[in-house]
């Protein structure tokens, strides 16, 4: 028996050695762009991009299902992609004209039918775009008119950032949806049919097509689709899409097997990348973590206390320990990003804003002004004699937010608060906020959206009274009263933020935005800590894109209008050796 065991184990060892046999080498002639996005493999992952669980490659979906247009953030103008002409007509309806001469990978031409199919399915799903839309009309083979109840810059943005889907695949369901109204009997059945619909193969209208046979949990390949939109101006034959979250893609980037990632990477990893000569590209994302307080918890409802917290936390330090140079302290404290503040507020308004510089003495003075004092241990005691003890929760899994929470806690405790930081599973944390089950919490402020009023949706809507929508029985969130009075008068901030994204008159919008910014700056319903910048790792030894001074980098990676996909769709991105 002993000998037999030896024999078997020797055999197994030999097999183990075999597995380290030389790996296949690339042929080196074709050009492959190597990027990454997490996805699910079949059977969980599928090709119905309208249903959840689909193989949706984030911003790279633009290569497969091209967008109608892309916003150039530096100029604020949309650049047409599949839509070559677009704009409001005299009746207040939106008209787009689809570019001619391109086709889907199954051979059908890209036309107005695809736009009709896409938006009819949006209607079936109940997407927000239909909130202001009364109908959609095919004018000719390449022109579509959206009938709007009221023109708004928000509706324009939603329409233009839509990824086009093929009518040849979804047309049948879309046509049936167009014939029905939501009250009809078959409506829910059709919706279910949509979610369970599984196209056999992916159909691409963009420059690259997913090759279904290459999908593994490691990576998938996209092949050049010469007839698709922008397929004629590409510099690559293939795109390799690596699968995985940050920890999984990091070794590939370090080993130069993967050349560009949009994953948020921890500063320590960033330093390692920099030492390997990998470029880090940073663009402002117009959002980031902030310190939210429950306004039902005394004394956090006192504006002086919130202002004192803002003064007592060094946001520069907090941002740097959390996300390195991509954690940029918020300066204007308007509830919008500094970039949006500068774009929408007048210089006089900007000068008037309180920038809440790091100033513990000023913070102390604020607390003393409402009758608080320090006890013998140096802890602050409120006017009722209670110490300022709070629990600060944060989503444990988010590396940068947990660092921000840890650091803010340390700083506030240094100042004389008594804060206990506690990590909560990321699935539970927002639920705690919606249901007002928190004292202090780290959640996000701002929004990666060029329409400034939408930045306030987090503080005034999502984390304030949104519990009902979240299925938590109508929790009031942070319990902030949206009817406020500030130096500019009495307003309802939620209504004003909604109103500011309506219409197309930017002067009128700017006035409302100024009200929002100034009142936020005075009242600080939640305290923004820092703005998250991207820290995309870009290996310029393999990828040739414009240098970091180019205005295209104002388009941050992560959502719509990503600079990398824009550069691919415009045929700029190229292999470094070309």
């Amino acid at each position, binding site marked *: 028996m002993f000998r037999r065991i030896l024999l078997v184990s020797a055999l197994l060892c030999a097999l183990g050695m075999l597995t380290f046999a030389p790996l296949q080498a690339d042929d080196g002639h074709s050009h492959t762009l190597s990027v990454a996005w997490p996805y699910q493999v079949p059977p969980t992952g599928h090709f119905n991009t309208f249903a959840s669980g689909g193989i949706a490659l984030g911003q790279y979906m633009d290569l497969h299902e091209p967008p109608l247009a892309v916003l150039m953030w530096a100029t604020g103008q949309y650049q047409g992609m599949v839509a070559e002409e677009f704009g409001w007509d005299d009746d207040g309806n939106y008209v787009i004209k689809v570019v001619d001469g391109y086709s889907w990978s199954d051979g059908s031409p890209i036309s107005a039918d695809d736009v009709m199919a896409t938006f009819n399915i949006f209607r079936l799903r109940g997407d927000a775009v239909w909130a202001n839309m009364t109908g959609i009309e095919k004018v000719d083979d390449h022109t579509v008119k959206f009938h709007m109840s009221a023109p708004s810059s928000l509706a324009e943005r939603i329409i233009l950032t839509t990824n086009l889907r093929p009518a040849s695949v979804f047309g049948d369901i879309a046509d049936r949806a167009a014939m029905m109204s939501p009250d009809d009997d078959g409506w829910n059945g059709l919706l279910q049919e949509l979610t369970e619909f599984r196209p056999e193969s992916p159909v691409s209208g963009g420059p690259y097509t997913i090759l279904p046979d290459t999908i593994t949990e490691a990576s998938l390949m996209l092949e050049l689709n010469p007839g698709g939109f922008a397929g004629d101006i590409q510099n690559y034959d293939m795109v390799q899409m690596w699968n995985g979250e940050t920890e999984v893609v990091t*070794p590939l980037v*370090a080993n130069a097997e993967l050349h560009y990632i949009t994953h948020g990477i*921890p500063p*320590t990893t960033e330093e*390692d990348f920099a030492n390997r000569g990998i470029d880090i590209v940073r663009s402002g994302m117009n959002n980031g973590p902030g310190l939210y307080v429950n306004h039902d918890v005394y004394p956090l409802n006192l504006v002086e206390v919130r202002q004192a917290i803002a003064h007592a936390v060094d946001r*520069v330090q907090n941002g740097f*320990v959390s996300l390195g*140079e991509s954690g940029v302290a918020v300066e204007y404290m308007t509830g919008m990003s500094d970039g949006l503040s500068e774009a929408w507020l007048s210089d006089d308004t900007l000068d008037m804003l309180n920038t809440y510089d790091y100033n513990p003495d000023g913070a102390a003075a604020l607390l003393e002004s409402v009758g608080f004092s320090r006890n013998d241990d140096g802890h602050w005691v409120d006017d009722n004699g209670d110490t300022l003890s709070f629990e600060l929760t944060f989503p444990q899994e988010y590396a940068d937010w947990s660092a921000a929470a840890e650091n803010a806690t340390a700083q506030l405790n240094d100042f004389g608060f008594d804060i206990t930081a506690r990590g*909560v599973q990321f699935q539970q944390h927002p639920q705690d906020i919606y249901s007002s089950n928190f004292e202090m919490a780290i959640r996000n402020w701002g929004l990666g959206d060029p329409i400034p009023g939408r930045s306030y949706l987090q503080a005034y809507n999502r984390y304030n009274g949104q519990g009902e929508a979240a299925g938590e029985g109508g929790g009031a969130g942070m319990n902030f009263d949206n009817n406020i009075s500030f130096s500019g008068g009495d307003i309802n901030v939620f209504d004003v933020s909604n109103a500011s994204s309506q219409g197309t008159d930017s002067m009128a919008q700017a006035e409302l935005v100024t009200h929002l910014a100034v009142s936020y700056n005075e009242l600080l319903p939640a305290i923004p800590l820092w703005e998250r910048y991207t820290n995309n790792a870009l290996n310029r030894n393999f990828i040739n894109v414009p240098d970091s001074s180019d205005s295209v980098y104002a388009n941050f990676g992560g959502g719509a209008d990503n600079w990398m996909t824009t550069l691919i769709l415009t045929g700029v991105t190229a292999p470094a050796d070309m």
Partner: protein
Amino acid sequence: MASSQMLEWLVSLPLDLLRGLVGFLRRLSANKPGFVGFLGLVAYFIVTFIMPNYVEFDNEPKLDQITGPIGSRIQLAVHRDNPHLDSWEALAGKTVGVVRQTGGPSFIEPYQDQFTVETYRWTSRRQGPGIPAALTDLANKEIDALLIFSKTVNQVIVNQEDEELQALFQDNIIISNPSLGPPHLLGTDTQGRDIASHMVHGGQILILTALIGGVIATLIALFFGSLSALAGGFIDKFFTALANLFLAIPQFILLVVLAGMIRFDSTLYLGVIIGLLIWPALLRAIRAQVLSLRERDFVEAARSLGLSVNHIIFREILPNMSSYVLINLIFSITIAMYFQIGLVVLGLAPISDYTWGVMIYFGRSRGTLYNQDGATMALAPVLAIALFQVCLVLFARAIEEIFDPRLRSAG
């Protein structure tokens, strides 16, 4: 059991224990690896239970020392014309620059009245010069020396985008004394804090919790396991069924649910909950051992001689099982240690107790393993736990040889 026997046992117990202890220590010193393990455990005790009283927990973020390499320390930068400024004494009466929020201010404190301190605010590159401003002042001799972290100096001097500044620094500044200030034995973490001080403070709670958890699990298993095996019948059926059920329940999901409902801040509670979660496998093992021992010759012999149940358990079965129980106790303790990391992930254990488990969790999630200089944040606690297990195993081996009658006779 008869009361006289009970009394007899109670009287003889302390004497037996004392005799055992003396013999144990004598035998231990004769067993080399066991003695090494024993010394290791003593060292762990000193580091984690006594040293925290003397080493301060470093909780001050130092922005320019983030993920400092092992042995990193504060450095003194001076102008090329003043190479003699290389010690605290030489700096007397001079102006010394420090950058706030870096390692400088705390090191400089004891000497503060000997020289003038010029403080610079640390700022990120995007928001304007912080360290570059300090270096410029040094290059222009507006200050005599600058206390600064070496890695930052290198980064600023070498990677300076402004070529004029870079030339100014390289021509005028030298890093003078490489050994000023206490070194960071294990480097610094993602906030520039000293990892060695965290190691000293992070062991106590983790070890205590693990001991509590391991001991509770072992006690439960030992008590109910032997009870099951010896009593048989319904009691046996009940406890084995319970253990089997517990084994099959998906613990991770149970913990996720628990995390949403309760929060544990006390070491004792944490230990108890861990103990309550890891006992079932141990119970099965111990029950089987007792069952098997029950059938052995010497137990049968003791029975046929009419010796009491008491005698059989404490004199025949337990001594023969002690090594087995011990090794399983050790495994339980290590399991309990890593269990705590799972609890940290779920938010069941607070991060304010900055234990080795919290260090491993944050070290991994903040990517330090991918950075040579920062990897100690996660690897130091892993190494500490692994070596702790080594010490326990070596020590347990010695105990095994001392207590196991068969090994003793084999000598």
